[in-house]
């Protein structure tokens, strides 16, 4: 029997690649309502992979990810997490690892450690959206409560959760007259702080 010809990956132009990436970034939204359908481990792995590829200050890698899929544990986490509004089926907790901080000779409180949490979470959420999942970042939880529930070692500080799940249908209701979202022009200055145009 003749083997099938290997399938060549589709060749896309840099423009097409940019369009795909920017479309995923632009269409991602925070999702706070999920179905009961579990997130497949393979999908969680791909989301974690995206987090792994995030930039970190000095490539120090002072964070660790803790994945929780057990519904009972997630329910307990929700009880001490007022910022967790939905019922996700998986949670990735990003922790600061103090042993790694010491090993990398990073000073406690250095802001890059917090910045890195954001870049990791953002990569994960963009990847989740590309995979058809919904996600939501949550920092509004009790850190002492989280450490107790998940039996974290004293060397791990929980900083941010990325909630994952399959999005449930939901229509956002807006007030008539509510302000619309900020534009690039609202957010950006050129060359000098306060200059609105790039001329």
């Amino acid at each position, binding site marked *: 029997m003749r083997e099938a010809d290997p399938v060549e990956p589709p060749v896309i132009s840099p423009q097409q690649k940019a369009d795909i990436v920017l479309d995923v970034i632009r269409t991602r939204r925070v999702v706070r309502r999920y179905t009961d359908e579990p997130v497949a481990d393979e999908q969680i792995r791909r989301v974690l992979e995206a987090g792994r590829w995030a930039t970190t200050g000095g490539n120090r890698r002072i964070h660790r990810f803790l994945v929780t899929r057990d519904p009972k544990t997630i329910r307990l986490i929700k009880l001490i997490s*007022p*910022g967790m509004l939905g019922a996700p089926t998986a949670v990735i907790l990003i922790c600061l690892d103090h042993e790694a901080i010491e090993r990398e000779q990073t000073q406690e409180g250095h802001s890059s450690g917090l910045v890195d949490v954001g870049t990791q979470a953002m990569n994960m959420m963009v990847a989740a959206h590309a995979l058809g999942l919904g996600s939501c970042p949550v920092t*509004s939880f*009790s850190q002492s409560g989280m450490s107790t529930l998940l039996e974290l070692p004293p060397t791990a500080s929980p900083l941010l959760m990325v909630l994952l799940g399959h999005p449930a249908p939901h229509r*956002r209701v*807006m007030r008539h007259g*509510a*302000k619309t979202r900020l534009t690039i022009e609202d957010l950006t200055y050129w060359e000098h702080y306060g200059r609105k145009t790039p001329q």
Partner: protein
Amino acid sequence: MSERTVVNEEEAYELLAHLVASAELCIREPYYYGTFRLIDAASKLMGFMLQNGGDGDRAWLESFKHEVDTKKEWMMWDREGYFEFLRSATGSVAGELKHRGDSSV
């Protein structure tokens, strides 16, 4: 006025955890987040009351809970509308309390 229990022990613990954790978060979060935690706790309480079938005005509870759940999210993208809702919300509760008082006479 009914003396029926509308929050069971498990639900009470859920509210307890929410309120204590919210108090902790108020130390470090923007002040208006505290208002969100309280109105969210009110939503949870109404959910328990509806679930356990109190003798109160179910239609009012359902309607008010729906309004709370819709408008509490405005805190994130329409703060002006959210504050406007908060200013009117107690009036809704007061109206229901008055209605309950009148009907129990």
